[in-house]
């Protein structure tokens, strides 16, 4: 890393030359990439020339939280930014929960948040209900937003910072022949009239950020590979007012084999209705059955409700094998940055969009120089370093507690513990895996093992009864 910096400043001293510098240096990969990698990869890190007559042009494909945040940071950094979004009023099917830190980090106005959830109920397969949220302080909450409102707000802010927002559908891209040739994007531009087929256009850009979600076309065009994904199925139900007061600031999570074999069913309050849904990775064909079971478990509380909308969407389970290629990087759902166990994606999408944009701004020195793959790799490094522990912890939780009904019973029992609640909310709301006191941790470990042992013992008893 140090050598590339000195190389760049060296070219800065020379008078700006538009000709290609043949000054190519092979930087040993071990200097610029994390030590834990097993293979030695030699990346040719060229000293990139200054762009003499123009700013760096970057296209952001997809205008959700990831795209909006990326476009805003790029535009603020002095880069010519184009944001391409296919549906400006898209209501992405989504739980819609954002952690507290997102409001602060992204300066979200409080009127975007429809509801502040301060209580959660976890319900086990045998309907043991546990209330969590007692440890939350006055100002702490989980924000529930409408995706169409949040996405539109972030796009507007990007536009105000100087990005050009285009309503269009990205089709494909032509890869550059040389290391500094531009990418040619083929897209269909809609001119604002609904129902019109739109006009095919092309655009030349220096770099691309793929923020186009779980079915990313950008990912396909760079051969990023596939990931396992879950199907999240959700019904929006408008329930009578007196039942709605119960969900005023409370969200519910149902676990059980009837509701989902590897995920959970939920009832999340939205602006004036509730969203009842469930998801699964392994039994996608049975999703309707799981949805019926979820509705059955919440039946008393949503009785008399009318279904106003049914929606479904894939949720990635792990990152794609390749998250970047030359000057194209993936962020958000397109990269697969959804946590396990909770299925949270909005915050990570926005944060990764911002981080990638920051890496581009830094690598191009505010748009004055061309970037290369090394600059984008810095974004990957930073991302992995900051958030891999969080992802790992949630993965372990999913593997341990979502395996079977006894494990889920133990999970709900554990959630009754105050220390667990405090740690869970701290790590969710502020996105830091905070170290608690070691004594409490040991007590927690002992209690977890106890709960798991008891739940499994009860399962053996159940099996004995069925014989």
């Amino acid at each position, binding site marked *: 890393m140090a050598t590339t910096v000195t190389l760049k400043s060296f070219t800065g001293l020379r008078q700006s030359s538009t000709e290609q510098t043949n000054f190519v240096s092979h930087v040993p990969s071990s200097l610029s990439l994390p030590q834990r990698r097993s293979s030695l990869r030699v990346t040719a890190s060229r000293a990139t020339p200054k762009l003499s007559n123009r700013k760096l042009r970057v296209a952001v494909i997809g205008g959700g939280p990831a795209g909006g945040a990326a476009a805003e940071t790029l535009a603020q950094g002095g880069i010519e930014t184009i944001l391409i979004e296919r549906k400006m009023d898209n209501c992405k099917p989504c739980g819609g929960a954002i952690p507290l830190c997102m409001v602060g980090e992204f300066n979200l106005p409080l009127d975007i948040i429809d509801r502040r959830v301060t209580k959660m109920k976890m319900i086990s*397969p045998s309907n043991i209900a546990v209330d969590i949220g007692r440890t939350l302080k006055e100002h702490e909450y989980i924000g529930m937003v409408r995706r169409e409102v949040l996405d539109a707000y972030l796009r507007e802010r990007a536009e105000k910072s100087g990005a050009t927002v285009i309503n269009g559908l990205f089709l494909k891209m032509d890869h550059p022949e040389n290391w500094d040739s531009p990418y040619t994007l083929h897209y269909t531009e809609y001119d604002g009239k609904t129902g019109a087929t739109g006009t095919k256009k092309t655009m030349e850009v220096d770099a691309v950020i793929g923020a186009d979600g779980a079915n990313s076309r950008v990912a396909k065009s760079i051969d990023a590979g596939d990931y396992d994904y879950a199907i999240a199925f959700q019904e929006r139900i408008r329930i009578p007012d007196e039942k709605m007061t119960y969900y005023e600031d409370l969200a519910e999570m149902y676990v059980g084999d009837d509701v989902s074999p590897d995920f959970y069913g939920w009832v999340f309050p939205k602006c004036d209705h509730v969203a009842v849904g469930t998801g699964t990775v392994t039994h996608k064909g049975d999703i309707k059955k799981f949805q019926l079971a979820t509705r059955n478990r919440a039946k008393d509380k949503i009785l008399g409700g009318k279904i106003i909308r049914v929606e479904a969407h894939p949720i990635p389970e792990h990152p794609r094998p390749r998250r970047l290629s030359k000057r194209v990087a993936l962020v958000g759902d397109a990269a697969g940055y959804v946590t396990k166990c909770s299925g949270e994606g909005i915050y990570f999408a926005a944060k990764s969009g911002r981080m990638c944009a920051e890496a581009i701004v830094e690598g191009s020195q505010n748009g004055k120089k061309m970037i290369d793959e090394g600059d984008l790799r810095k974004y990957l490094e930073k991302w992995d370093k900051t958030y891999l522990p969080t992802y790992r912890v949630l993965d372990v939780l999913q593997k341990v507690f979502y395996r079977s009904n006894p494990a889920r019973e133990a999970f709900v029992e554990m959630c009754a513990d105050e220390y667990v609640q405090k740690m869970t909310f701290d790590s969710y709301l502020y996105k830091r895996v905070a170290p608690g006191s070691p004594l409490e941790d040991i007590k927690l470990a002992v209690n977890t093992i106890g709960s798991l042992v008891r739940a499994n013992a009860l399962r053996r008893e159940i099996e004995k009864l069925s014989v």
Partner: protein
Amino acid sequence: MALFSPPISSSSLQNPNFIPKFSFSLLSSNRFSLLSVTRASSDSGSTSPTAAVSVEAPEPVEVIVKEPPQSTPAVKKEETATAKNVAVEGEEMKTTESVIKFQDARWINGTWDLKQFEKDGKTDWDSVIVAEAKRRKWLEENPETTSNDEPVLFDTSIIPWWAWIKRYHLPEAELLNGRAAMIGFFMAYFVDSLTGVGLVDQMGNFFCKTLLFVAVAGVLFIRKNEDVDKLKNLFDETTLYDKQWQAAWKNDDDESLGSKKK
């Protein structure tokens, strides 16, 4: 269970007087003799009890649960037979209801009333465990709606740790220790007969001590044939997520870790 009931029902139709002898000669357990005696006494030629028995034989749990007045607090296998017969009529009535919720005389206000589980002045934890297992089994097969008026509050940690160990771990520990002792004795004898090294000298040898350690660890983790595969799968599972994340840093010609079919 189901194997035995059909022959009884067919024979009872033919020759009511023959039943007691038939049952005593074929079946030794108290349970079935009780069953046949009660049926002989209520033998009025009606087919409903006999037909219902073959229906309810595979589902003894639900019947007991539905008839709280008849079941005694300490649920013993012998008493379930009498409860079953009386419960037969109850089951047929209840099938007309649309939703059957879990009910039990001892399940009050969303938790088990421990006072009803007392035996000789102390709580009989074994029956609490069995009752909770039955409730969970019932709910697994018939998921119920949660309700704010009747929240479920039971927490298994009220059952003391020694009750769990006594019920589940001690029998298995006894089994494993017994097996280990038998194998150990014969291995020691075998090695002694081959090499002439006595038991005390065997323990002093480093190689033997290592073998002992491996044997103990093996018995702890691998108790059935399936455990070997289970442990291997567990190891693969723990490392898979990490591999998926590190895939971005690997060379292009390495195998793709995306979309692994689990």
